[in-house]
């Protein structure tokens, strides 16, 4: 019996799935930290400018490229990009659109499994009566694998993702988005209300919740002239919108030519901004500042928002006591789980699309294949978390790869495919009139912006390749045991880097086989 063709169930479902793809843990853990480290309220100025000049244009480009390729029956970036120009190498640029999803899912699913685990521990009362240090140690012990629990939750999370993916677009991904996104908004609104109405002296709080908002939103306008702040803003826009990953292309490839993409892209993009700016700024920092004060939060956020979210907030929720502490824990980690799962499902879809289109795999088998690949590649991030493998995956797949792919795709769309043809693609079936200025922005401003981001990242990339930070740590350490540990860490980091390179090459080889297969079968290829 032939498998039913993949399709979206409804337009709202598509938009919620796209918004869910964009809304991730970074909206709640990364954005507020980036804001306080880069000019407070003034950060929103470069951030929104980057959103308008780079984020929205790239959304239009990715939605329209995806729909264009989808009309030729392609649902993953190698052959979507291939359909846009006659030159053969574009399909290999499209490899990034599969590589990124596989590699990011490999560590992201582990992160997602923490949220599930923390929901469970919030309900079962594991944090009741614990000191702040004990809650922080709980996290340290968890990632050090002192018990088998992290692996169990990780496998549950992977199985859940695989099962949902096997149900298809409308039966799986879309249903989760329709349940998960409204729940995420409800949980977020509840926590934001609790955070903002926090009063000094109430349950041990040393500040009002508004002190945190004040800390986050007080603008330091001098920061606007800093290149570092602009790079941070551009980076945040990238991560938050899931640009340069290939997942947007894949979701959009199931849209017919006459259906709108312009309004859909606007709606999903702004929905993400609402979650990030309105909800993302109103939970983590106000609660943390309310209980810990500005100086301590400033110190704690130097290493990012992850520690604050998983190591500190569960302790702070306990100050609310009883059922409210459980409700807050479930809401916070439930919110992070829904943010995570809607994103990880989007990472699985392009991989499945590739296997189904090119090798005729059935949906269930391709979902299982994705689950198995993520399990195998994710295993090092779980087992060797403390050796920097997780961060290494995040750096190369979740940062560098996105910028490289986006830079290539904007050049392809604007200059090779041609902006006139591209603009027609964006406007075909559009339910809104996109201002003509975006034609100019997509052709000139966005590529320059992306080139700037890429060039700005080059020193960091070089430092990463040459392990500058690790060598520096070794030089500053006198303890021989610590030096040995750092050397072991460097070994694991180098091995994971080589592993990621081999993964990219393996996917490129599969694309080559698929290309040869297409020629043999007389199927469309440029």
């Amino acid at each position, binding site marked *: 019996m032939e498998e039913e063709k993949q*399709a*979206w*169930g*409804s*337009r*709202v*479902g*598509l*938009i919620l799935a796209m918004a869910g793809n964009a809304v991730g843990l970074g909206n709640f853990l990364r954005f507020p930290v980036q804001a306080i480290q880069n000019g*407070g*309220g*003034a950060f*929103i100025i470069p951030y*929104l400018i980057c959103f308008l000049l780079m984020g929205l244009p790239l959304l239009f480009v990715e939605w329209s490229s995806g729909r264009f390729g989808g009309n030729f029956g392609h649902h993953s970036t190698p052959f979507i990009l291939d359909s846009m120009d006659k030159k053969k190498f574009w399909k290999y640029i499209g490899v990034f659109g599969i590589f990124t999803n596989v590699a990011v899912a490999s560590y992201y699913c582990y992160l997602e499994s923490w949220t599930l685990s923390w929901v469970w521990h919030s309900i079962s009362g594991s944090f009741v009566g614990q000191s702040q240090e004990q809650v922080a140690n709980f996290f340290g012990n968890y990632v050090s694998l002192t018990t088998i629990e992290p692996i169990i939750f990780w496998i549950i999370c992977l199985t859940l993702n695989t099962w949902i993916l096997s149900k298809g677009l*409308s039966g799986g991904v879309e249903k989760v988005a329709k349940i998960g996104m409204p729940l995420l908004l409800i949980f977020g609104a509840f926590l934001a209300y609790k955070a903002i109405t926090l009063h000094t002296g109430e349950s041990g709080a040393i500040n009002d919740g*508004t002190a945190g*908002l*004040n800390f*986050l*939103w*007080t*603008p330091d306008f001098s920061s606007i002239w800093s290149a570092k702040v602009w790079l941070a803003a551009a980076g945040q826009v990238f991560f938050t919108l899931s640009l340069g990953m290939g997942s947007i292309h894949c979701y959009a490839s*199931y*849209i*017919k030519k*006459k*259906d*709108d993409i312009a*309004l*859909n892209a*606007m*709606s999903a993009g*702004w*929905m993400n*901004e*609402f979650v990030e*700016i*309105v909800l993302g*700024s109103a939970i983590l920092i106000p609660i943390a500042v309310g209980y810990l004060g500005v100086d301590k939060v400033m110190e704690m956020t130097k290493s990012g928002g992850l520690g604050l979210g998983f190591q500190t907030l569960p302790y702070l929720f306990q100050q609310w006591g009883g059922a409210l502490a459980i409700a807050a824990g479930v809401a916070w980690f439930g919110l992070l789980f829904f943010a995570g799962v809607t994103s990880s499902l989007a990472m699985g879809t392009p991989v499945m699309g590739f296997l189904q289109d090119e090798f005729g795999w059935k949906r269930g088998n391709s979902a299982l294949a994705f689950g198995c690949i993520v399990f195998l590649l994710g295993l090092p991030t779980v087992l060797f978390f403390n050796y920097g493998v997780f961060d290494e995956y995040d750096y190369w797949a979740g940062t560098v790869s996105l910028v490289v792919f986006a830079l290539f795709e904007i050049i392809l769309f604007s200059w090779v495919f041609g902006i006139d043809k591209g603009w027609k693609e964006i406007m075909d*079936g559009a*339910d*809104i009139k996109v201002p003509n200025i975006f034609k100019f922005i997509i052709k000139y401003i966005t590529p320059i912006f992306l080139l700037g981001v890429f060039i700005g990242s080059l020193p960091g990339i070089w430092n990463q390749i040459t392990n500058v930070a690790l060598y520096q740590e070794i030089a500053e350490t006198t303890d021989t045991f610590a030096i040995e540990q750092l050397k072991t860490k460097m070994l694991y980091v180098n091995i994971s880097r080589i592993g990621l390179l081999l993964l990219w090459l393996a996917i490129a080889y599969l694309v080559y086989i698929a290309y040869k297969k297409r020629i043999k079968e007389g199927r469309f290829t440029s």
Partner: protein
Amino acid sequence: MNTSALIMMLVTEVIVTFITAYFFYKVLTTPPKPEPDSFTENDEEIRN
């Protein structure tokens, strides 16, 4: 909250909320395209 922080927050959040609501409202109120479209949930209704 100090005035500059309050203004920055309110202006940003009002603008972002308004734009988000506007585009989502537009999605909800735009009539669907004639069949066959990209969405399966309305297929049955059309046939009946």
